[in-house]
């Protein structure tokens, strides 16, 4: 179904009309089908109250009938249903009337035309003269059916065509989605709507039939929100853009909406930080490209780039999500558009009858603990029990009595049985939960609609004390003023989120997982729970087996005695005005702001080893963004075949942030009294943060020929404050071409419903962070009068903007009436002139300097296969397959530095970008090898290791990722599932290095009593030789070996590499929609849907039980694959209920 609408005039595309005609001819039922198709296409987002008494004023001379129809629609609200063919044949009209009646005006318009019309309900059906109006008389219809048509989100659909399968009865839905039709009681209603799958509904004598339409996701007519909020038909796109079904993300929810996109978009990689509830998410489209900047996409809400990402946005407010994967698609967004964009439109109202929908969701979360811990040997070293040991190299646990480790005086002298405590780790964790409740109301009339929504989200983590509370409040008003020539759109979002005890990551003493994983296997839960005792001074202090240690702590202490609260309050406001000057021109002017206020409150209790007398810290910070833009649009048919849609726009974006923090310092006078005044030395810090401003002008346009060939051209000029004055201004162009081959070639095979080729090129610029042009000096407290320290980064006064050049080509194919669809995209991006720091030897006087350079290339392939194996009245089954892969290559960095260590933890890994290598090679210490590649073992039987982290051991990038989703529905039941697979990619694990080094894992059970020979019975895949070249035959025991290979300070990363391949059941939901007949037509309750949902339910396959590559320590580029005491995978499942009230 392909259509185009000009304010109220619905026109079928000639191509489709032809195709339809062919089908009709086959069926030898031309006339009926023609009318059906006419009726099939309707539009208009706003209808007005109207009556036949409506008066019309028209002053037009020699104007196309189409425009006359538009004007009539504007003034009287009547829509015309016709094909474009018909209008082409129509003569131009001259009319000059004031306050004329509709009938009178129509008479003038249709005078001498080859067309005639009939009025029905709110539509004017246009026919060629001579074609029969086969509308049955209402008088002879035995039954009147009323009802409502909604989309899957229960938004009413306006202008949906309802017609009887046999006969010619037809109508369209009104502004509230309601319809009324009179048909025989055994009729079958065909309900169809642009962009949605048609549905056939048997009447079976019912008087009320409500219909829900599923959107059609593969057809060319799907409207896609593209850059700057411009809605384009899929057919006109010259690049790959993908929409995501928003129903799924509200039903099968996550605490961060971005998590729900996992596995759904080819080429989109999503990882979550290991910080528990409310964790930030890293999204990368088509691979990393920025060496020291961010490779994350831009997030755009209602046409405005927002601060940060979508993590605080409620899925309930989202009407559509589109992912623009490449620079080509997002070039118009300028800076950061080079990484693609994720575009959200939030819901707007529909007017008419007030509607309220209520939904609630409750899921429980359980950990998937999979690290193979050992429970045979307990605390100690060299086989001896040491009650204060943080290691498990002690004796076998055989129930022997040992002295307690407890420091609590009341435990003095106690002994306990040295037995395996196989659940001591699980005992600490709990079943988490996630609940959310949403109310959404829409009211107002067609010209002044208001929506109000509220969502409350509450979560409890799998670690006690980790909670999240979030309130999302939204209000949005749409108003049409001055006869619809001025449209107002205004919205306000208020979001408040409080997270308690966000999980610390890595080796932090307060990371509960570090303490849980390092819990010796003999420590009894009951003892560990006694994490606090009163010391000799009468102050509660920590009870831990190794007091004053550096990073170890009682896990319960870490959970309960380091409370941290992080709050965020966010307001997003937007107002836009669109004025339609004439048929050809309109202008949109928009202003928006986004403000985030964050607070933090951190308490360290007395007895926390890193802060022995306690500490209290509070901080506040804010980020602000102001955005203003305008877009001037011009569109016109240049000729019968040529159409142009041109735009000129500009924007200004100002961003700044600041922060204030204070603490008691490492000194609190009164233990555990958390007041900033409780110190001799309060310290405070204030930062103005940074300010940036970007001004832009851009122009873009689409030229189309016969609605089948589209040429896009765009150019943008940015002025960025962060660059040197000479480089403030920079320009970049993009262009694209697409062709609907199936429409261009006559007599194209019928089974191919569409075939489209597309190609695009883009060049995108990107500025830098602020304050890179001058060397700064910091002033700080110290000495008698303060200290002055020069910044360790050398400025670069010659910086230029970064540049990404992207080429993308693709094919979209639809077969058998869209039952099978295939989209293939090939792309290549090169990011040049990158702004990055080059590490200098510290002896140069600085540690790094900013420079331009480099060329990072990504080439990839994305395939999206859609299919509908079954489509009957009652059963529908869709299966979609995603596949994506890419190659990354660092072609060039700089002459001075062909290799850059982008980041490193202090111990096991360095994240490196090196010329001639894929992006993101991870280097670590390796085993030292001789010329023949044999590992050299020293006289003690211990393998020798490289002195530095010089061996490439891992790269996080998968070879390919893919997913299969299945949506099955039978009558009111539906079953959806999503399975995704990651193939390849490796990471080196700090968790394992430490757990193996400490003797906590099953791997360390072998050879505790000696007898390990490296290269023989341990690491048997390695060939090992002694320094004299003879094969290694020196026996060692497990503790000697693992302590030197693993541990914290200098682990041999090569021994702790995990294969990240896995296949998992990402999503499963089973839903049932209760028929409205159950409630009766007088009930206020309607459309009740109940779904059981599950997320991340289990792994079909996982190459390494140690790792879930979805969960990483952090979300920086260098955190890719970083595993340092990350939380386990979390499985969640629960129920979702949604009810509409009327």
């Amino acid at each position, binding site marked *: 179904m392909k259509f185009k609408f000009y304010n109220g005039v619905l026109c079928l595309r000639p191509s489709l009309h032809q195709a339809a005609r062919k089908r009709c001819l086959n069926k030898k039922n031309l006339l009926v089908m023609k009318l059906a198709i006419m009726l099939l296409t309707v539009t208009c987002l706003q209808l007005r109250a109207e009556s036949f008494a409506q008066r019309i004023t028209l002053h037009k001379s020699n104007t196309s009938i189409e425009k006359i129809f538009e004007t009539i629609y504007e003034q009287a609200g009547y829509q015309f249903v016709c094909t474009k063919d018909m209008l082409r044949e129509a003569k131009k009209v001259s009319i000059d009337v004031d306050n004329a009646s509709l009938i009178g005006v129509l008479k003038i318009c249709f005078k001498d035309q080859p067309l005639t019309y009939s009025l029905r309900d709110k539509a004017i059906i246009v026919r060629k003269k001579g074609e029969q109006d086969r509308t049955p008389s209402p008088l002879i219809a035995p039954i009147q059916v009323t009802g409502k048509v909604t989309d899957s989100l229960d938004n009413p659909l306006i202008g949906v065509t309802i017609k009887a399968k046999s006969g010619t009865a037809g109508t369209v839905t009104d502004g509230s989605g309601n319809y009324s039709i009179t048909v025989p009681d055994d009729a079958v209603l065909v309900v169809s709507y642009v962009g949605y799958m048609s549905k056939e509904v048997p009447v079976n004598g019912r008087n009320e039939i409500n219909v829900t339409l599923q959107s059609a996701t593969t057809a060319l007519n799907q409207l896609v929100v593209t850059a700057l909020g411009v809605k384009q038909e899929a057919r006109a796109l010259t690049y790959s853009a993908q929409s995501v079904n928003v129903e799924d993300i509200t039903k099968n929810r996550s605490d961060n909406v971005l998590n729900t996109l996992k596995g759904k978009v080819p080429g989109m990689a999503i990882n979550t930080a290991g910080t528990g509830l409310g964790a930030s998410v890293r999204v990368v489209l088509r691979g990393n490209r920025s060496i020291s900047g961010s490779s994350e996409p831009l997030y755009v809400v209602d046409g405005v780039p927002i601060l940060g990402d979508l993590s605080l946005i409620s899925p309930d407010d989202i009407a559509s999500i589109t992912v623009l994967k490449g620079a080509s698609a997002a070039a118009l967004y300028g800076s950061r558009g080079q990484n693609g964009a994720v575009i959200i439109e939030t819901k707007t109202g529909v007017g008419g009858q007030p509607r309220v929908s209520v939904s609630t969701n409750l899921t429980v979360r359980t950990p998937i603990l999979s690290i193979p811990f050992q429970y045979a040997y307990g605390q100690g070293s060299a086989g001896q029990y040491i009650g204060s040991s943080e290691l498990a190299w002690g004796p076998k646990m055989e129930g022997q009595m040992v002295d307690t480790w407890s420091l609590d005086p009341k435990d003095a002298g106690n002994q306990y049985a040295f037995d395996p405590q196989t659940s001591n780790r699980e005992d600490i964790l709990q079943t988490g939960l996630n609940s959310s409740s949403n109310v959404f109301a829409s009211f107002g009339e067609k010209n002044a609609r208001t929506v109000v929504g509220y969502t409350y989200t509450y979560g409890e983590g799998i670690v006690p004390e980790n909670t999240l509370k979030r309130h999302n409040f939204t209000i949005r008003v749409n108003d049409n003023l001055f006869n619809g020539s001025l449209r107002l759109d205004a919205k306000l979002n208020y979001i408040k989120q409080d997270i308690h005890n966000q999980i610390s990551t890595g080796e932090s003493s307060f990371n509960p997982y570090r303490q849980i994983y390092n819990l010796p296997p003999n420590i009894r839960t009951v003892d560990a729970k006694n994490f606090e005792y009163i010391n000799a001074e009468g102050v509660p202090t920590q009870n831990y087996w190794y007091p*004053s*240690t550096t990073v170890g702590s009682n896990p319960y202490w870490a959970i309960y005695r380091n409370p941290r609260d992080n709050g965020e309050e966010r307001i997003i406001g937007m107002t836009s005005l669109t004025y339609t000057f004439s048929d050809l021109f309109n202008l949109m002017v928009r202003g928006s702001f986004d403000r985030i206020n964050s607070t933090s409150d951190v308490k360290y209790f007395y007895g926390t080893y890193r802060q022995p007398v306690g500490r209290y810290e509070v901080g506040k910070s804010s980020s602000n963004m102001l955005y203003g833009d305008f877009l001037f649009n011009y569109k016109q048919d240049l000729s019968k075949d040529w159409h142009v849609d041109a735009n000129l726009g500009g924007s200004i974006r100002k961003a700044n942030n600041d922060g204030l923090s204070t603490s008691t310092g490492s000194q609190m006078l009164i233990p555990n009294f958390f007041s900033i005044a409780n110190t001799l030395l309060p310290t405070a810090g204030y930062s103005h943060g940074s300010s940036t401003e970007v001004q832009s002008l851009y122009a873009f346009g689409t030229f189309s020929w016969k609605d089948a060939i589209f040429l896009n051209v765009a150019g943008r000029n940015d002025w960025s*404050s962060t660059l040197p004055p000479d480089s403030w201004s920079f320009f970049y162009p993009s262009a694209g071409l697409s062709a609907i081959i199936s429409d261009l070639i006559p007599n194209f095979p019928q089974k191919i419903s569409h075939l489209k080729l597309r190609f695009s090129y883009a060049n995108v610029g990107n500025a830098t962070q602020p304050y890179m042009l001058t060397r700064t000096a910091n002033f700080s407290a*110290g000495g008698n009068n303060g200290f002055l*320290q020069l910044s360790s980064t050398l400025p670069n006064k010659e910086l230029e903007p970064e540049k990404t050049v992207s080429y993308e080509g693709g094919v979209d194919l639809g077969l058998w009436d869209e039952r099978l669809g295939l989209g293939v995209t090939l792309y290549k991006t090169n990011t040049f002139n990158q702004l990055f720091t080059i590490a200098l030897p510290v*002896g*140069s006087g600085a540690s790094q300097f900013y420079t331009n350079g480099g060329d990072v290339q990504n080439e990839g392939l994305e395939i999206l296969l859609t299919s509908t194996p079954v489509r009957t009245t009652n059963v529908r089954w869709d299966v979609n397959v995603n596949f994506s892969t890419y190659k990354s290559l660092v072609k060039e960095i700089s002459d001075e530095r062909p290799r850059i260590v982008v980041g490193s933890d202090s111990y096991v890994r360095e994240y490196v970008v090196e010329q001639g290598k894929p992006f993101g090679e991870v280097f670590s210490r390796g085993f030292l090898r001789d010329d023949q590649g044999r590992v050299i073992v020293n006289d003690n039987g211990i393998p020798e290791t490289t002195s530095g982290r010089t061996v490439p051991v891992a790269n996080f990038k998968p070879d390919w990722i893919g997913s299969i989703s299945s949506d099955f529905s039978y009558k009111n039941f539906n079953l959806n599932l999503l399975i995704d697979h990651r193939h390849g990619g490796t990471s080196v694990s700090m968790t394992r290095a430490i757990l193996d080094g400490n003797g906590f894992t099953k791997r360390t059970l072998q050879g505790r009593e000696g007898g390990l020979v490296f290269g023989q019975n341990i690491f048997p895949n390695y060939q090992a030789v002694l320094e004299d070249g003879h094969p290694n035959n020196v026996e060692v025991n497990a503790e000697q070996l693992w302590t030197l290979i693993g541990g914290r300070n200098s682990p041999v990363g090569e021994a702790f590499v995990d294969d990240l391949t896995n296949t998992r059941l990402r999503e499963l939901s089973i839903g049932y929609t209760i028929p409205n007949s159950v409630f009766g037509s007088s009930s206020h309750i309607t459309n009740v849907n109940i779904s059981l949902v599950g997320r991340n339910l289990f792994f079909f396959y996982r190459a390494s039980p140690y790792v879930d590559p979805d969960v990483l320590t952090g979300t920086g580029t260098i955190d890719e694959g970083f595993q340092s005491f990350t939380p386990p995978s979390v499985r969640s499942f629960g129920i979702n209920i949604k009810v509409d009230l009327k």
Partner: protein
Amino acid sequence: MNTKYRNCYHTLAGLSICLLLVGAVLSGCTKKYTDINTSKDNLSADNISSNLVGQAFAESEYAGLSPTPSFQRAQNLFADIYAQYFATTQPSFQSDEFFEVGQWSDFAFQYFYSSAAPQLFFVRNYTRAHDMPVAYAIASIWRVEIYHRMTDYWGPIIYSNFGNGKTSVAYDAQEDIYHDFFNVLDSATAVLKQHPGENAFGSNDLIYNGDADKWLTFANSLRLRLAMRVAYVDPALAKAQAEKAVQDGVMLDNSENAGVLSTTNNVNNLSSITYHYEFAMSASMESVLVGYNDPRLSVYFAEARGGGGYIGVRNGLTTADRPSSLTVNSSFVSLRWMPYYMGGPNPPNRVMCAAEVYFLRAEGALRGWNMNGTAMDLYNEGITASLKEDRVDASDAEINQYIESTNMPIALNDKWNSPPMTNIPVKYDASGSFENQLEQIITQKWLALYPDGWEAWAERRRTGYPKGYALINSLNPNINIYGMMRRLKFTESEVANNEQAVEDARKLLNGDDVNYTRVWWDAKPLNLFPKPTN
């Protein structure tokens, strides 16, 4: 109004509004861009006034001694334990078993060159360019002090090429660096001699409050220290420089001691890490201080928290021998080095003291140089100066009793039945062999320097004294328990970021880039080295 006109009007109106907007954006302009792109939280390094140079010098003074966050990794886990002031009790710290943990030394190296060196580089450039000769001379003297610490750790280091702003910075050979030290001291002292009674940096000088005369005395004393350092490798240079130093006037009194002021914002280095309780009094310290009934024992250390008095710990314990009870059952530093918020006095960070200078002169006299006194007299003066320091404040009677004491180091009541660390008394034996007298001098200097492990380790490498205990265990296959860590390896970040220079620097070493290669001045014949006690 006819249709055509209306359309035209609308179009014109639209276009003009559009143009206005374009104009507004363009003229909204980039005028403020330079302002916007200037940080409000930082000064611009281009506009630092002479009033602020002192604060940069203050930073270089404090940072030059590797304070926290560098201190533990730079000094406590290396020099302090290799000098056998302390032994490690934390099970995962392996440097006490002669295993150089690369990240620690890397951090130490990077911290110095990114925190101390740039400030001093800036101060020297600024004071030279702005004709501030006294300030320049003082900054140059301080440069010698902090760089000699660095070269003593690694051997070749980045010195003359520091601040070249390039991607490769060449190292200098230690021999060249030491020669340059003497030259720099020559010119700096010449300037200070010409400006008696002057002041530079005022209270921003955290050592002498800008007193140029005191800096002159310090410079001469530093010359003496450096002269002694090269005594084995270049005896003639050592003698000449030492005699010149003494002739020009070295520290004679504790009032001339050099120490960097500690404040609550820049705390005493050792006190910044003591709350971890990760080390303990070494067995060597116990054997000597307890054996001598030394007045400094209770000043330096606290009795074991678990009772039993002063208990030291052998260096090089295996992990199994370091249960947490060890920290309770051994002596930790006294309250003097506990954090100020736990009641510690937050003392200055010691740079040099009069006692050290007397011991240097004593050794010089022992070597037959003209040190204005005999070895014995100067030895006794050294002890006197140490015991008269504020922190000990012993009476004359106590001092005399101590100097005449024939007490000997004691054997330890530990798992290893450790014998006395050595067999020398306090009382100087002028008739003893050269090595015997040297051991007495250096062992007493070791006691006086405490807790400056940086200097004590250098002197232990140079002379072999104090004799110390052998390690219980060595993880280093190339250094056995009787051996000694002789230097730190070139660091990982330098190998990564300054590869060619490191490659060249390795050629400046007397051997491989390993822990047992001796630095240039470390030239005492190995057969003269005492074997640590076991």
